[in-house]
């Protein structure tokens, strides 16, 4: 029954209009970054043609020109800012709607509460992760068509934005494709969990727009709390805000596995408890 329920939920999550709209929106935003990167790269090629010096071929590569690899274009800035919304829009609202229209009662009566809530969690998680990562993957592949995948060199670390203390920096300078894929996995997991916040928000609020937007405001508030933590200008802090550490290149402080895993664990536990324990115990009839 669980398998069937998961199948139904996944079909509903991945074959709905909002999922496609989110992917389209995400891809359009990353296109802004793509156009900017191509313009910069072509300008560099032009400059190289007219100079006899070092062509500095390792300076520009796909790894520091795709949306996740740079932190200064409008497209990239917008994309990572609205990432929580992009994660929640595809299917984060579904539980809220199903609760109101009575679908929950029917599904729980047929397949059991545990089955329904677990399959819903899995579907929301996957839709959130995919909704956020597909545009990034699209941008990376598109940028690869135009800019060579030269191995980045630490000599140009200021252009790459990946420094000695950065997360997985050794991987970035040795197997950059793996670095990109690993970062996409981190984004996938985190965005899945962010979408699950939306799912859990439906336990408290009745409006689906509110459930979709709430995770973004929570992350924004958490981002603001950095002001109380990062008080010294001499200490090298680790990035605690998902709005920054979900970017493969550091925008402020460097990311760390300890922070990422701890926050993911907290999010997972909290969303699981709310959806599988708290919500399951509630009367649905």
């Amino acid at each position: 029954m669980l398998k069937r329920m998961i199948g139904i939920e996944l079909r509903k999550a991945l074959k709905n209009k909002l999922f496609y709209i989110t992917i389209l929106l995400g891809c359009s935003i990353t296109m802004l970054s793509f156009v900017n990167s191509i313009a910069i790269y072509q300008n560099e090629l032009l400059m190289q043609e007219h100079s006899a010096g070092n062509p500095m071929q390792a300076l520009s590569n796909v790894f520091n020109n795709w949306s996740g690899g740079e932190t200064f274009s409008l497209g990239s800035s917008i994309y990572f800012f609205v990432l929580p919304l992009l994660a929640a829009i595809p299917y984060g609202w579904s539980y809220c709607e199903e609760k109101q229209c009575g679908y929950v009662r029917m599904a729980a009566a047929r397949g059991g509460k545990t089955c329904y809530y677990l399959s819903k969690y899995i579907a929301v998680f996957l839709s959130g992760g995919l909704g956020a990562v597909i545009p990034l993957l699209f941008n990376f592949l598109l940028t690869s068509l135009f800019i060579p995948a030269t191995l980045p060199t630490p000599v140009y670390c200021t252009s790459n934005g990946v420094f000695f203390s950065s997360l997985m920096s050794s991987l970035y300078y040795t197997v950059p494709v793996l670095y990109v894929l690993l970062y996409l996995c981190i984004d996938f997991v985190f965005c899945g969990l962010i979408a699950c916040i939306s799912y859990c928000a439906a336990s408290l609020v009745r409006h689906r727009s509110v459930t979709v937007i709430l995770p973004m405001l929570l992350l924004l508030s958490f981002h603001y709390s950095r002001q109380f933590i990062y008080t010294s200008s001499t200490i090298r802090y680790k990035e605690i805000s998902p709005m920054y550490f979900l970017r493969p290149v550091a925008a402020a402080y460097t990311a760390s596995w300890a922070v990422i895993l701890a926050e993911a664990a907290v999010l997972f536990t909290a969303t699981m408890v709310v959806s599988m324990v708290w919500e399951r115990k509630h009367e649905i009839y």
Partner: protein
Amino acid sequence: MRFIKDLVFDFRQGILRSGTLLLVPAVIAAVTFFDFYAKARRYLEQGMIQSTVDYGDYWFYLYGGMCEYIPSPDNPFQFPAVWTLIFLVLPFIILNYPFRDMYGVGQQILVRSGRRSLWWLSKCCWNFCGTVLYHLIIQAAGLVLSLVFEVEISNRIHMDFINLVFNIRYQEVWNPSSLPVAALLLPVLVSAAINMLQMTVSLFIRPMFGFFSVAVLLLASAYLLSPLLIGNYAMAFRYDWVLKAGVSMEAGMRIAVILLLLAALTGLVRFWLYDILESE
């Protein structure tokens, strides 16, 4: 008479009975004030600023936004957290009320109001007053906290503190010493225009996408110093009395009022044709 009844109903339901609209700005004011106060004390203890800060500095801390961003690989874009929080929380709070009123029991009110235009105008007035109230609560709470923590109440600003807080390095700035009245009003007016725009946009697309477009607009405004992006007029640091290449406050006033009226009118026309039954 019917319009007054609608308006009173909206004020009661959408403002006075809206706990979030009354509570959230007070919480924001309290949290940002403690952050501001702690920073000011730290800078003073470390000898980085010469004198104590005033209420004007707190106001600037809230509505300053950020200086002009110059894109480069070694200068990552960091959005202004305080400013974004203030201007993005409000659209979220007021997002649902008009649409909640269109469905279910709310439809009775729409029917009883007799004319769609009166209903919409009442919502526009509610939106504007809600926005003004939100900013008033933030500033009033800031004033009370300033009195409690013995921060002088004046419109003076200290550029040494502001330069430190906003991390000003290369930008050419004037050295103003006090806040002009127009600067105090403009962010509120821009906020009202943005909220009205969101309410109208939400009639064309879903409310969540209305919020999405406001979020993109605010971020784009922070990223790009341009007179065409209205968010620039909500950032005190982008005004031409602070930043030499800044935007004109006078133009900001005009643009905000035009956008406010245009959004309300477009919404009115759209609402005449809006199929409430189908949307439900």
